[in-house]
Each structure stands twice: as structure tokens, then as C-alpha cells.
């Protein structure tokens, strides 16, 4: 318990990268939580004339059908954070369970999981994600599902290689000697030791999940009902916003995607530096 607190202290306070990353994520989390209070309008409501340039009433102007872009932007943080957390967590659950089972039990189960991981990692993920999203139809949960399908192999491979060394440790042997079953050893004794690295990788893969969701929405494969930052960019592109000089309409959501993505990467790198023993020595 004390060591966890010490790690947290290092990650969030002493490591400047972790602190900045955490601050950025908190900033957008607060915006997402208090969206109802911050946003001046309902983002779905037609509140002004279409293509209004930014003014006192509409800070970022209105879109091609007269919705307030600033309100859309505020609510958009919810979608990005939702995807950024759920997709990697879903991948990590599948990947961790399979990785532990494969690494601990070995044998043909291991061969099977390693084979599946190798095959998945060799598939062309982005075009496949685009095509699967096109076939499955536009919905936020479909996007998360597709992201998880392509996300779990990375987790499985990482967890498995950790388990290979953990299962030889004395404490595991002691547990086995006292008659603990495989299931108990895997999930009571080994799991807690891989969790820190898994968390680091959840945070690190949030960035690519957010970028992929935004990219799919920008291509028109996103959920048309969910107001995401990628969706705002799509409307701006389809509605020729730049042609009319409405550059803030494009600038703001893209900047937010980049900022939030940077936040997750910074925090992820800080956590990884703390929990991955290999990295500790290679940095000076």
C-alpha cells in the first residue's frame, strides 16, 4: 500500500511529464462532467442562423445547420474520454486474461494464444478497422468493439511474457506447494503483479483509441448521433468551413484531440517509467 502511494507520488508529483499529462486529462474530465453547466446551448438544438462567424453569442460560431459549435465542442469531450477509457480497458481485460492463461498453463493453449496474437498483429489494422466499421455500421459501441478486437493482442503478448518469468518465482512455487489451484495462482498471485504494467499500457493506448475514433468520425464512419470532436471536423469539412474563413470551427476540436492525446501519452510514459524495470536503467 505504501509503495503504491510512493509510486503515485512519483508519477503525479515528482515526474513533471506525469503531472502535466494528469492535469490535461483532469481538465477535459472536468469539462466532460460539467458539460451541462459550461455549454451555453443544447448542442443538438438549432439556436442560430447557419454559418454564423464567432461572436459574443456564439463563441466559435454556428455550424452548417445552426447548432452552437462551442456547445458541440464541450460535449465532444465526453465521447473522446469515453472511447479513450473503454476501448483500452476492454482490450486489456481480454488480453490480460488470455495472456495469464497462456503464460501460466503453457502447452497447446499457449501455442494457440501466441498463434492468434501473431496473426492479429500481422493483419493490416487501420484499413481493416475502416472497412469493418463500414460494414458494421456507424455506432460508437461498434467502434469501441472494433478497437478492442485489434487492441487485445498487444496486451496478451505483454502480459504473457511477464507471466513467463513470474511463474518461476519462489512465491508462486510456495503457493503451489500449499495446494493452491492453477486458477487461484493465476488470478490471486500472478495477476496483481502484472496490473501496474497493464495500467501503463491502458493509458498509453488511450491516445491511439482517441485518434482512431476521431479519424473514423472524420471519414463519416462515426456515430452520427454522438457529438464527437471528429464529427465536428467532418461537418466543417463537408460544410466547406475553411472556404468561408471559419477556421476556428476546425482549429478548436483538432487542438483538443491533440492535447488530450498528448496528456494520455505523457501520463502513460510516466507510469511506464515507474513500473517497467527495463526502462528504469536506460534513462539518465
Amino acid at each position, binding site marked *: 500500500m505504501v509503495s503504491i502511494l510512493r509510486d503515485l507520488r512519483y508519477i503525479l508529483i515528482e515526474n513533471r*511529464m506525469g503531472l502535466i499529462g494528469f492535469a490535461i486529462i483532469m481538465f477535459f474530465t472536468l469539462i466532460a462532467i460539467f458539460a451541462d453547466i459550461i455549454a451555453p446551448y443544447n448542442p443538438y438544438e438549432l439556436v442560430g442562423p447557419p454559418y454564423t462567424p464567432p461572436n459574443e453569442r456564439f463563441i466559435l460560431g454556428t455550424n452548417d445547420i445552426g447548432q452552437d459549435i462551442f456547445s458541440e465542442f464541450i460535449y465532444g469531450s465526453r465521447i473522446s474520454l469515453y472511447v479513450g477509457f473503454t476501448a483500452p480497458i476492454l482490450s486489456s481485460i481480454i488480453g490480460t486474461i488470455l495472456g495469464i492463461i497462456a503464460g501460466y498453463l503453457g502447452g497447446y493453449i499457449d501455442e494457440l494464444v501466441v498463434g492468434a496474437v501473431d496473426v492479429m498483429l*500481422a*493483419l*493490416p489494422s487501420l484499413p481493416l478497422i475502416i472497412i469493418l466499421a463500414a460494414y458494421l455500421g456507424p455506432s460508437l459501441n461498434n467502434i469501441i468493439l472494433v478497437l478492442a478486437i485489434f487492441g487485445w493482442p498487444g496486451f496478451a503478448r505483454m502480459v504473457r511474457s511477464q507471466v513467463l518469468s513470474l511463474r518461476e518465482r519462489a512465491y508462486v512455487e510456495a503457493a503451489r506447494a500449499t495446494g493452491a489451484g492453477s486458477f487461484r495462482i493465476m488470478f490471486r498471485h500472478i495477476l496483481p503483479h502484472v496490473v501496474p504494467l497493464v495500467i501503463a499500457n491502458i493509458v498509453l493506448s488511450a491516445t491511439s483509441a482517441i485518434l482512431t475514433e476521431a479519424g473514423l468520425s472524420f471519414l463519416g464512419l462515426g456515430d452520427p448521433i454522438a457529438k464527437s470532436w471528429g464529427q465536428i471536423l467532418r461537418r466543417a*469539412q463537408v460544410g466547406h468551413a475553411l472556404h468561408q474563413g471559419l477556421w476556428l470551427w476546425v482549429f478548436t476540436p483538432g487542438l483538443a484531440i491533440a*492535447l488530450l492525446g498528448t496528456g494520455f501519452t505523457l501520463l502513460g510514459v510516466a507510469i511506464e517509467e515507474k513500473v517497467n524495470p527495463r526502462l528504469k536503467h*536506460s534513462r539518465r
Partner: protein
Amino acid sequence: MLRYFLLSRAIRMLAVFFIIIILNFILPRAMPGNPASILANEYNLPPETVKILVSLWKLDRPLHEQFVAYIESLFTGQWGYSYKYYPRTVYELVMERLPWTLLLQGVTSITVPAFGMLMGILAGWRRGTKYDVAVTISAIIVYAIPYYWLALMFQYVFGYQLRIFPIAHALTPGASYSNFLEYVADVLWHLTLPVLVVTLTAYASYTLVTRNSMVDILEEDFMFVARAKGLPERTLMKHALRNALLPPLTMLAIRLGHIVGGAVITETVFSYPGVGYLIYESIMFKDYPVLNAAFFMLSITVIVANFAADLLYAVVDPRIRYVRRG
């Protein structure tokens, strides 16, 4: 050991290939309607034509016969007709778009790794300095920038405001060229913004990988010995580079596999007439035959490139062969 390694990789490649072929067969058949009825609806084809198409594509046959026919057609380039550009064939469309994609991707496959690796080498060599920190942090930020967003902002600044670069297409529409040089100039002029944007956003992963690999190598014992022997900096750099460039070079080999289908979003945002833009159009129009063909083609190139990257690695780095992956 090398034989075992090659065999396991070859088996994996075949497995991936098999999965892609199956997916490619199932996905379009899981969609409502079949190619013949969709074409009939879209273009008001007479029932006789539909009948001919149905028997031509064996859509009235049982699934296993369809599967055999499908395998045959895949390898003979008979990928059917585009829904959107009917009566043009998918094969024609893909071949027409391919050169533009190869051009754009070919150029960025040089600029991106070159720029990225250079930054990474310098940062790793001067690890721990302010320069290293600046390069690493900026690469982390750049990694999170959506490139279509940077593309849009560049279009706004260089296209709409300064008016020095075109924001769309690969050639000036309706232009006629008096000589070949003029044509080349027009092509390059349209290529500038896409290449610039891709380079400025995609270099980051090369930088981070090269930098970390460089730092790892510089910590190795043999580097310590080399330094202790008093070898000049140039020679040390050469020793380090030989080892440190392996990971980024593998990344490059894998990137080459994504050349064909690669830049869907880049080409879309610049309306660049390559295969990526064709894929986008097919998604918008639900042009499934084109989507399928494109998916098949780019999967094959990705698989082959991954295999090549594995081979390259096994040949260049003998350590790989003896370690089973895990």
C-alpha cells in the same frame, strides 16, 4: 534454427492470408442484397441483364461453389463491377488510381523515416541533454496530432490565405501541358502540401523508436569498451548506428506494406486520386466490390511486407533466430 524460424513465419503468413480470404468472402455476403440486385436497383437494369449477372457471378449456386469461383476470380483480377462507376470494372479503377498512391506514398516513405530517424539519432546520442528532452517531448505531442487536422490548417494558411499551394487534386483540373516538364512541375506542386503534412505528423514514431534504441545501445558493454579504447566519436557513432537502426528499419519495412491502401485519410482530405481516396468513395457509396478488392490487395502487400521485415531482421540480426518470441 533459421529453418525453424522461417517455417513458423511462413505458417503464420499463410494463416493470416487464409483469414483475410475468408473475411473477404463472408463480409459482402453478410450484407443485405447481392451485387446483381444492388446494380439493378441503382441503374434500373432490365431483368435479363440481372439474370445474366447472377449466373455470371454464380450467385444462384451453393456457397461452396461460390467460394471456389471467388478464389478463382481473386487471382485472375476479375473483381466485378463498381457500383458507383458502373459499367467500369473494379480492376480498371484500382489500376488507374494505383500510380498516384505509389507516388505519394513513395515520396513520404523516404521523407518520414529520414527526418524521423535523424531526429532520433541526434536525441539518443545526446541523451539527457536539453536537446534530447525537446525532441522527445515534441515527438510525443506530434504523435497525438491528427494529421487530417494539420492538413486542414495547412490548407487554410497556404491554400486559402497565402494562395501558394493547391488544396486538392493531383493535377490542375482542365490544364493542358506544352511539355513534359510543365506536367512534372504541376504534379510536384500538388504533391507539396500532402507530403509536408504527412512528414510533419508521421515522423514522431520513428524519432521515439530510434531514440530509445540508440539509448539502449549506448548503454551496452561493447560501447563502453569502445569508448574506453579511446576510439574517435565518428567510429563510436558508426558502431552505435549499425545496431540502433534495426528497429526503425523494421518499422520502415512494415510501412512499405501499407503503401497500397495506406493513406485513406490523407488522400481524402486532399482529394488526391489514389487508392485511399477510392476506398473512401467506396465507403460513402457502399461500393462493396471496390472495397473488397482494395482490402484484398492491401492485405496481400501488408502480409508480404511483414514477412519481408521478419526475414530482413533474421538475416541482419542473428540473435533473433535463437530467441523464441515471448
